[in-house]
């Protein structure tokens, strides 16, 4: 049995009824342990003091805002070429979460930047490109809402999501291409993370928690959408 069986709504609903609570429980567990270790059981930074704990929200949100967009782009690709309706549903339900996570990354970044850099916002390459990512998310959501015809909206939005993917490598490598204020990557890089293990553990926990949160909400909203469409079909009979 392969994963493609999930493209059948019936099997997907069966899978979702199990996967959704599991993801939900895992999300809560990871978030609680991650928050606890991050707030009480991890060392303060020798320069930034307690302020470094913003990292446990900021870094997962920022890196997963890219991850979620990649998810949208891949599901759009699957929808566009193989017309799996569920892939489109997945992309559509992931977009608002991705936008909110990007917003969280920007806001926590501003809160963190004010005391450490002395400014909440600079025209730094990574900040600007992350703001652009927010605009692309917003454009994607707006495009879906603006076009009345449902299938047309889905296909055009999936094309737009694939083209917007060009911004992702730009954000990822912006800190290496332009030496501006934002620090270079210290987590996902070829030579391994350059961050102390005590800080790495809560960071990873929060990141996994956020992934499970994403999975929970996406599965939930896909379930809702499938039920909505089956209600529509039955009431049309």
């Amino acid at each position, binding site marked *: 049995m392969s994963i493609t069986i999930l493209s059948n709504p019936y099997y997907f609903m069966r899978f979702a009824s199990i996967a959704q609570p599991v993801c939900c429980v895992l999300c809560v567990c990871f978030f609680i342990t991650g928050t606890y270790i991050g707030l009480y059981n991890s060392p303060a930074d020798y320069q930034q003091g307690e302020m470094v704990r913003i990292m446990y929200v900021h870094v997962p949100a920022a890196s997963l805002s890219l991850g979620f967009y990649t998810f949208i782009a891949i599901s759009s690709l699957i929808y566009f070429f193989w017309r799996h309706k569920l892939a489109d549903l997945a992309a559509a339900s992931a977009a608002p979460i991705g936008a909110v996570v990007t917003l969280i990354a920007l806001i926590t970044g501003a809160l963190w930047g004010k005391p450490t850099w002395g400014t909440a916002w600079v025209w730094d390459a990574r900040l600007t490109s992350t703001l652009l990512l927010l605009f692309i998310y917003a454009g994607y959501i707006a495009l879906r809402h603006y076009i009345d015809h449902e299938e*047309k909206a889905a296909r055009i939005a999936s094309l737009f999501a694939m083209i917007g993917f060009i911004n992702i490598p730009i954000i990822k490598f912006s800190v290496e291409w332009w030496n501006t204020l934002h620090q270079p990557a210290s987590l996902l890089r070829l030579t391994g993370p350059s961050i102390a293990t005590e800080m790495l553990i809560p960071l990873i926990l929060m990141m996994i928690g956020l992934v499970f949160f994403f999975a929970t909400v996406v599965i939930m909203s896909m379930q809702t959408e499938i039920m909505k469409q089956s209600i529509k079909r039955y009431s049309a009979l």
Partner: protein
Amino acid sequence: MLHSFFYVMWYDIRSYITNLSTLATVCLFYLSIIIVIPFGLDGNSTVISQSSTGFIWIAFVLCALLCIEKQFSQDIHTDILDILSLRYSLALICFSKAIAVWVAILLPLILFTPLSAILLHLPFSQLYPLLISLLVGSPAIAFIITLGGALSLTHNRGSLLVAILCLPLCIPVLIFGVTAASVSIYGYDNNTSGLKLLFALDLLAVALLPWASGEILRIELENK
């Protein structure tokens, strides 16, 4: 295939030339942005000349976005797209439309650049890299405009949304264009990485965007 390519391109260029209103609007808007900028900077000539490459690039991109609506507005009323799509691929039509807008609108805009460089006190030595960067970067922008034109057909609520959708796509071109244009300011003349990245964006745009705009047109024609 080549015949249809040249036919669509020539048809578009001719319609841009016989009806000069688009070109005139775009050029006037370009010049008015350039004229307004010094007022915003309080006439501080050192600041103006230092940042003039950036301003010229921004004015260029904004003016290019003005042509989005014009891209397909004539074809959608006549059924020429339906007829052409019977024989030729829509990607090819979009490709030739992009080339047409590049020749008829963006090239004249680039020709205006020396004038705007004088207005913004751009040092003469920097004019040459600026022109080269605009020349290299503008094809990618032409393809983005064509994509926006195709997107603007999909709904009838004005082109404002489309400008918002297209602006993020133009940002990489803007970033590398300004990098390529300002190499001589920072003194490393041998550094052509900005230009190379602009070329890379051009190639990416040629490979991807005509196909994408053609697909959007196809969806549009199917659900008309």
